[in-house]
């Protein structure tokens, strides 16, 4: 832990790949994982004479993020060239934005340890991604230019983050927003979301200290650990009277450590100047209004509505709202009028369990949220088993709620859907023969049999060990192959043993 006599000052620069259909300055598809150098053209390869043409979809997405983070959308953004030599950058300059970014002065809010925290954003700008170097075993290096020109937004926070936990929460919130807006898939391992950290220590209330940078952070864990290590390193130097050098630390994900690079090795003069191949980007009021209309309800507002209007607990609301598709599925399932609390419980318990087990995934068809069933034999082919629609799922909750079947039978139906696909719950009740037995004659017969078969337990129950009620209900459930209405069964057991 850092020496308590220092305050930590952290700023984050987050790069998010936008999920546009084509790249930001050409019409090449913007997809991950293709054969190297197949998704390229003269423009994204920076061939002599090729010129960039702006993809408006990327601008729309950047504006959306700006609106969602309460930024001012600049009436005129100016693209600039950032000049540096590196083999993954085919023009040896990156088209970015410099002194006139698209969005300025916003903020992001989140809850941390019961408090609402607000971190200011300095800017959000649009730029192009670079390619990837593949270092071969023979000492040679190869370049894959597929990623060149994939649109990125860079989201720069002000240095207002105070701890590794807060940095992590900030990043989680940012990712959640990006996914809510459906503009970035937020996959840190695949690099569609990347985070650079600036960090410095100072005496409480004192002037800002010298900052250092951490790059290459490829997971939330890495961000937290990297920051923690760097705080320790800086505190150690300052504590022993040393001075902090302006260095860049690279996160080594294999060894889980920071590699410190000398400042000189990273001293760049990027020689920014306005990109002459692109006109200034004039975002009119109309465009902003169009994007405002597309802005979905954001996670914090939605959580509040789930609490206030649906009566969910704060915890339940935040779990359901973590991913937009989950919250959408939840609300879609509610449309048949079932109890929100019960639907929420089913999602958080049964659905999440199967999702975590990799048997189903949340997805969408034509915008409608649903659960895709993963085929155990062909895990790649999520489409071959009919998906579980919100209505199917709500049906399961309903037949349990109205006592048609027991909750364990309900779970059985859901398990069956996860295996063989969605459908009306009633159909599964029929085909699995799960209709709950609520006929008191039948139930009484089973209860009497259970009592007769367990004289010891009867004696102990009568001696006051009433917790054994569950044992008798269990026996009846066994005899009825799970069909007995447990509530009614319990009442009958009680009546017989106590009455």
């Amino acid at each position, binding site marked *: 832990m850092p020496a308590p006599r220092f305050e930590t000052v952290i700023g984050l620069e987050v790069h998010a790949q936008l999920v546009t259909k084509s790249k930001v300055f050409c019409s090449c598809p913007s997809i991950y994982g293709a054969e190297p150098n197949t998704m390229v053209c003269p423009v994204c390869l920076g061939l002599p004479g090729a010129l960039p043409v702006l993809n408006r979809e990327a601008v729309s997405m950047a504006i959306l993020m700006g609106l969602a983070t309460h930024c001012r959308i600049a009436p005129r953004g100016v693209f600039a060239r950032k000049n540096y030599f590196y083999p993954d950058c085919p023009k040896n300059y990156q088209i970015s934005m410099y002194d006139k970014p698209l969005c300025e002065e916003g903020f992001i809010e989140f809850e941390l340890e019961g408090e609402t925290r607000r971190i200011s954003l300095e800017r959000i700008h649009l730029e192009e991604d670079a390619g990837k170097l593949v270092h071969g075993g023979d000492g040679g290096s190869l370049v894959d230019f597929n990623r060149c020109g994939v649109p990125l937004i860079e989201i720069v926070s002000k240095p207002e983050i105070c701890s590794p936990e807060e940095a992590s929460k900030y990043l989680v919130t940012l990712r959640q927003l990006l996914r809510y807006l459906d503009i970035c898939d937020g996959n840190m391992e695949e690099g569609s979301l990347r985070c650079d950290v600036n960090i410095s220590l100072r005496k409480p209330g004192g002037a800002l200290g010298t900052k250092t940078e951490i790059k290459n952070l490829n997971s939330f864990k890495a961000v937290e650990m990297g920051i923690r290590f760097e705080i320790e390193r800086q505190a150690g130097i300052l504590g022993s009277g040393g001075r902090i050098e302006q260095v860049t630390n690279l996160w080594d994900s294999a060894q889980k450590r920071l590699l410190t690079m000398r400042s000189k090795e990273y001293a760049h003069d990027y020689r920014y100047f306005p990109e002459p*191949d*692109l006109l200034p980007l004039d975002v009119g009021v109309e465009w902003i209004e169009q994007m405002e209309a597309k802005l979905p309800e954001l996670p914090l507002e939605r959580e509040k509505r789930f609490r206030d209007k649906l009566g969910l607990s704060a915890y339940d609301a935040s779990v359901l709202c973590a991913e937009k598709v989950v919250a959408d599925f939840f609300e879609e399932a509610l449309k048949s009028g079932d109890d929100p609390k019960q639907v929420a419980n089913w999602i958080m318990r049964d659905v999440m369990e199967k999702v975590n087990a990799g048997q189903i995934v949340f997805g969408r068809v034509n915008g409608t949220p649903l659960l895709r069933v993963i085929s155990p034999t062909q895990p790649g082919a999520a489409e071959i088993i009919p998906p579980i629609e919100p209505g199917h799922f709500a049906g399961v909750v309903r037949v349990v709620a109205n006592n048609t079947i027991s909750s364990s039978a309900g779970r059985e139906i859901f398990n069956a859907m996860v295996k063989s696909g969605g459908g009306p719950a009633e159909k599964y009740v029929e085909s699995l023969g799960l209709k709950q037995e609520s006929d008191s004659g039948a139930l009484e017969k089973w209860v009497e049999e259970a009592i007769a078969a367990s004289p010891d337990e009867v004696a102990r129950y009568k001696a006051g060990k009433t917790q054994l009620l569950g044992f008798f209900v269990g026996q009846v459930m066994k005899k009825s192959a799970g069909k007995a209405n447990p509530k009614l069964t319990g009442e009958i057991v009680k009546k017989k043993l106590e009455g």
Partner: protein
Amino acid sequence: MTDLLQYSIEGLQGLYRGHKASVREVMQSYLDSIARREPSIKAFLQVFGESALKEAAALDAKGFDGRSLYGVPMAIKDNLCTRGIPTTCASKILEGYRPPYNATVVDRLRAAGAVIIGKTNLDEFAMGSSCENSAYQITRNPWNEAYAPGGSSGGSAAAVAADMALASLGSDTGGSIRQPASLCGVVGLKGTYGRVSRYGLVAFASSLDQIGPFARDVRDCALLMEAIAGHDEHDATTIPEPSPDLHSALEKGFDGLRIAFPSDLGKWEMDASVKDIATRTIDDLARGSAPAAGVTLPGMEMSIATYYILANAEASSNLARYDGVKYGLRTSSKSLADMYDETRGAGFGEEVKRRILLGTYVLSSGYYDAYYAKAQQVKALICAQFEELFTKHDLILLPTSPTPAFKLGERLADPITMYLSDIFTTPANIAGLPAISVPAGLAPNGLPIGMQLIAGWGREAKLMRGAFGLERIYHFRERFVRVAGSEGGRDAGA
């Protein structure tokens, strides 16, 4: 048989329409002309004899179809990308590079029916005013082979002047079409910035570069411009308008146009022969229907400095991509840094290196405000002054180059003098205005001199009318180009 080299574009098309000549015959005449003149002129980096004849035969087979450039033999500057065909920019660093795509103008020329017979020499990456900065060869001025053709589009100018192509394309960043046009006695046009797509033009200075035509006369020049101009979805800086009609109103000439000339011409260093022709032109206009008014030309004091800051800054960035990683020259080096240094060290010539260094310097942190930012402010000022001037006048008349052609080698050791030869041409680039050079007469040593017109933004139609008016004053071809295409076929007698 008639000399097929003497026909203008419309003349040739008359022959095609009347079945008096085939495209193949015309093409062969030009290839024969190349065979006679090219060994000493060296205007071409590549000649496509075989493919030109093949394309000609295909056009003949289809017959004349009325396309504006049907069967016109053309040369293009070797900084225009041609699919599968080497595009060198006269640089060692692009030796052997074959682009996978065509420049928009190349596609448009082909679509209009032109046949490209070769790619022409230039100053490396279009940086220079003499064509001597080519890494491959020195092009000679067809009027006197001891002299430079001008630059950077010297090969394209010389090819037209020597009748090795009926017309050609060049690029103009600070005068690279108009100056060689002036020095070679042909018409050279740079349109409004954004009039012609730059897609596939290997960039020198993106905010200044424009592709434009060389032709023997103003009408041909107008037809060529019409064929290549107009919005292109691949170039975001093109004007979102279709190609303008430039040829139908040419005959109106100066009628109703308000001409201005710089009243302080005497202030600028220039050859007496150039000053003489400028003065005579102004007198001619005064006697005619379009008396010219003396004005102060915007940007003259600052244009060279402004131009060389902006152009070199952009060049330093545009030329960063030539690093040995992807295409062109790569030295075998020990490390990545060595590969960059050695490839660029070996691949670029002296002038290119000088400009990359200057451009890198003016963009460096600490110098940006004093140079690049200041130059942008001056540019805005020059634009505003031109705009103001063009509310009262339609055209500005001034010399194209302060001197006629200079001797090869004469200015190589003195880059400043070389840069100063752009003094009359750079203002139009800085302000993005259309400008044209029209052959006006000969210097006492028999070398041609051109006069320049600049028009307001987007006013190419007025510009071409004025150019046509000048052509009617000078009668340059009738007076000085006696027998087109024959050996040493220039009459130096003025």
